[in-house]
């Protein structure tokens, strides 16, 4: 399953170092993301296309091999993003 930002033009966001605050114009809710969630959101916001959890893990790990627990953590975070109306499956 690949993921993308849900209606990117309806997300307001601002990055403060390792944190991101994001507001969904669709739901009106505002959220505070740090560490993994912030990096994940930023990666999705700047990605050219939808990405799978494994592809996101590779990007977040950079030059290092992604640890095995990273993809499941990303999947869980993506599901939470879906619940919050921030991200959605593209397929």
């Amino acid at each position: 399953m690949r993921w993308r930002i849900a209606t990117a033009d309806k997300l307001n966001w601002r990055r403060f170092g390792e944190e991101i605050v994001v507001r969904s114009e669709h739901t009106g809710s505002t959220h505070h993301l740090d560490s993994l969630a912030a990096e994940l959101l930023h990666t999705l916001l700047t990605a050219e296309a939808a990405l799978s959890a494994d592809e996101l893990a590779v990007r977040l790990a950079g030059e290092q091999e992604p640890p095995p627990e990273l993809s499941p953590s990303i999947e869980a975070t993506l599901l939470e993003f879906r619940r919050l109306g921030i991200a959605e499956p593209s397929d």
Partner: protein
Amino acid sequence: MRLRTGPIVTRIRSELPAIAQALGTVYREHIIEAPDTFADFHVRVAHPAGLRRWLKPQVVFEFDGAPPFLPLPAEQAFAILEWGLNWCISANCHHYLVIHAAVVERSGRALLLPAPPGSGKSTLCAGLVNRDWRLLSDELALLDPLSGSVVPLARPVSLKNASIEVIRRFAPGAVLSATVHDTLKGSVAHMKPPGEAVRRALEPARPRWVVMPRYQAGAAAQLRPLSRGSAFMQLAESAFNYPVFGRQGFELLASTVEACDCYEFTYGELESAVGILAELAAEK
């Protein structure tokens, strides 16, 4: 009378002597505008009709002729006026982002003190404005979305319970209204704002610090850095009309915290608390 408090003019009507006396005490340096001046709000404090005018007398606050909340005992006439004026702003001033916060200024830079009731925000605010900080507001920070600055109100500072005596000792020259007991908030008194704050009530200030105060008896005054993300969320939660502003409100708060150093602040004694914040202001 048409009372000016910063950018806001309120037409206040009342036949109650207690209102006139309190206004003459804590608003005595404020500008009273001419009768034909446009008023943003029209309010009245009066006895309600019927038996409650005489039997356990009550007072009611009216906004445009209608009471937005229940009557209170007559002794609380001035308190209901002040609470009513707060309600007028928080419920209607949607050309500002209205944040539940005290705000003071020094050297053109504003210190925002967002905090829930009981945090010691107003006590700290009263202490600061008696030690070289200018009062902008003790309760409602009006953030202008066009300029990003905080617009002053310079209204009396509301003190509760033990804080009343704390401020009497801390600032013996401060002018306080009569203390009213047995309100929903306990004992309440209002401190007259310093004259300079009133004279400069049309001078906005750019936010430079966001400090979340928390009074804790016996605690040493301590500032702890707060992440900008956390500060943003607390400001958003403290803003009465953040949902009304939508994206503009989000961008405004984001720009505000970006420009500020943010802290949590625990204090147990007012003099040292004021000293710590003076050092903060002197650093940059």
